[in-house]
């Protein structure tokens, strides 16, 4: 028999028994949809996890912190982050860029606006280039300018609040009227001194013009070289920070603090700063995600703490794998029930059609054709069920996401990639055919005598 004849014969057989076919298909629809939706939940979870990781610092980044201070044998200062260490790390295989990171909290002022908690990160220009900022305007800090320049994260602006009693962006939804690029922003590096002035002079309260006995810290005008792309609510790992060239920052800080300890720097037991400047952390970028673990291990062996997203990612992935397996398993139970109902339907259909099958055999229908006919019928049930099931899955997935988003999270909880849809349909067809295999064998083996026996 020709394939098309088999095709039309089996589909018309299903069409003849519409109600039963629909009921059986319904089982497959539910089975497919439950598997696909369940797996989509697992996928959505791991997908949103990966997105979160991207936001929290790419997967190839390692951050090095000073060695554990609770180890008894070693002196604390031994494991502090120095230029030598940066050099050492830079020479480890697969390390692309190693940059010291010096961070300090400063206060920014523009007119009546104030941002009392600007986190300034000093890094090498090389590393800044590597971090791949997306800029709305301007450039990243340049190497050869010779004066300190700030690159503002896109969320920094939202943290400026009016000291004239106005409320912040988070309450009003209105951004401060500051053009970070062109307005001159004044920076107070010695935040402690600033606060001292503020609180010692309770009556005057605001402003730097209050004539208090304590000398207010000096304000510096710092040029803006660029602003990152994104609105005040587009969070990423950089969006809260201000970046600048580390060398210029250290020069500036040494100038500002002179003999005083720079905030965040370790001090001797007598409270004096060390001669050398120690870094808060070291930013390490590895050439490939596969090498992150190796590099990280090497750094740890040097006696420092190294953090990357890898371990977390791996354990999370394992965890989501389990969740996916469990959810998929739950879905699979309903698919199993659907498969049993396909088998049942096919058996019923074969009993009903004993005579028809017999006639076909007497008239010379090939045994393999008869088997194919029934396998195709079962496969059809699977196919229709699979297609409808996957469509239904997309609907359910959409509803889940809408509901979840209404509840306030922005994540896509249910995620059905194209391959999952395709596998869902193929799987449904295979299940259908597997369920139809035994009945089809039975049909093939039916005796043709049954047909000509006269009832």
């Amino acid at each position, binding site marked *: *028999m020709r394939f098309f*004849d088999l095709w039309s014969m089996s589909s018309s057989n299903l069409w003849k028994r519409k109600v039963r076919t629909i009921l059986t298909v319904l089982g497959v629809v539910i089975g497919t949809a439950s598997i696909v939706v369940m797996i989509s939940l697992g996928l959505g979870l791991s997908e949103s996890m990966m997105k979160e990781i991207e936001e929290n610092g790419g997967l190839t980044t390692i951050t090095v912190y000073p060695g554990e201070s609770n180890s008894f044998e070693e002196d604390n200062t031994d494991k502090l982050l120095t230029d030598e260490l940066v050099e050492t790390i830079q020479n480890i295989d697969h390390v692309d860029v190693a940059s010291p990171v010096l961070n300090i909290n400063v206060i920014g002022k523009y007119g009546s606006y104030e941002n009392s908690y600007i986190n300034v990160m000093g890094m090498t220009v090389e590393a800044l280039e590597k971090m791949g900022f997306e800029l709305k305007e301007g450039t990243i800090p340049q190497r050869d300018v010779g004066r300190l320049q700030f690159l503002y994260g896109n969320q920094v602006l939202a943290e400026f609040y009016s000291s004239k009693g106005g409320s912040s962006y988070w309450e009003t939804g209105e951004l401060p009227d500051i053009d970070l690029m062109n307005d001159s922003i004044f920076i107070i590096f010695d935040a402690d001194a600033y606060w001292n002035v503020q609180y010692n002079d309770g009556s005057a309260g605001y402003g730097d013009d209050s004539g208090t006995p304590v000398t207010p810290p000096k304000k510096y005008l710092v040029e803006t070289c660029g602003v990152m792309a994104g609105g005040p609510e587009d969070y990423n790992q950089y969006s809260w920070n201000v970046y600048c060239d580390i060398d210029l920052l250290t020069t500036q800080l040494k100038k500002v603090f002179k003999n005083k300890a720079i905030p965040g720097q370790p001090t001797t037991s007598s409270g004096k700063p060390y001669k050398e400047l120690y870094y808060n952390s070291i930013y390490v970028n590895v050439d490939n995600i596969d090498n992150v673990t190796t590099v990280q291990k090497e750094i740890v062996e040097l006696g420092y703490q190294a953090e990357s997203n890898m371990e977390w990612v791996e354990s999370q992935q394992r965890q989501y794998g389990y969740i996916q397996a469990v959810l998929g398993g739950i879905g699979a139970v309903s698919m199993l029930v659907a498969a049993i109902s396909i088998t049942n339907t096919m058996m019923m259909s074969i009993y009903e059609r004993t005579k028809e099958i017999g*006639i076909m*055999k*007497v008239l*010379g229908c*090939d045994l393999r054709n008869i088997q194919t006919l029934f396998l195709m019928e079962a496969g059809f049930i699977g196919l229709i069920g699979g297609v409808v099931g996957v469509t239904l899955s997309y609907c359910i997935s959409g509803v889940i996401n809408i509901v979840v988003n209404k509840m306030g999270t922005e994540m896509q909880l249910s995620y059905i990639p194209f391959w999952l849809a395709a596998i869902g349909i193929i799987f449904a067809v295979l299940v259908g055919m597997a369920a139809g295999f035994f009945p089809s064998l039975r049909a093939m083996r039916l005796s043709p005598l049954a047909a*000509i026996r*006269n009832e």
Partner: protein
Amino acid sequence: MAEKKEEAVIRVKDLYKIYRVGDSKVRALNGVDFSIYKGEFCAIVGTSGSGKSTLLNMLAGLEKPTKGEIIIAGEHMETKNENQLVKFRREHIGFIFQSFNLLGTMNALENVALPLTFQGMDKATRLARADKVLDLVNLKKHKKHKPNQMSGGQQQRVGVARALVVNPEIIFADEPTGNLDSNTSEEVMNLMKRLVREQKQTLVMVTHDNHLASFADRIFHIKDGKIIKIEDTREENKEQE
């Protein structure tokens, strides 16, 4: 006689069929020998339980003989497996059933074309051929009718057309008029007889009715699994002419 010189289409040698019913053996066929020649219309007549249906089933390859040989169109039926038998039936045999056995979901044309479908013929060709054969059995007006829209006689004519359509070497008919009233029976028998003549087909019919058997060229009387008499009606007919 001219016909007798032609090759035997069916050659049955020493055929036995023994059923086991509990501890006892039932000899449905007990040593049968005969030949049927091309273009003949033969009837196998016997009472129920005589073994006539068993014989027909074995000729058509629906049952396996216990012992003996069946040679149809030069091929041994008893050595074929089920797949080969199906293939053989598809290519060489037409079958007319007592209860018509048309597929209720197909119209007359499609029912007639069904055996051609099994041969893998394309739709246009097979429908054209079925159409022609339906003309032969005088069913021009009922081609698009489903079996339940036709009378018994019309249905059996569709059945006859279905057997003829593959242009088989042999047509087997199992009580073809068993479900028809006597007038319709005559009609169908005459039709079959005429077609066998015109198409030069070989027809083997099983019946319990001596009157119907008299339409045949030769009549095999079977009783208790043995052929007791072979009657040739052609000589009588000739004498009558």
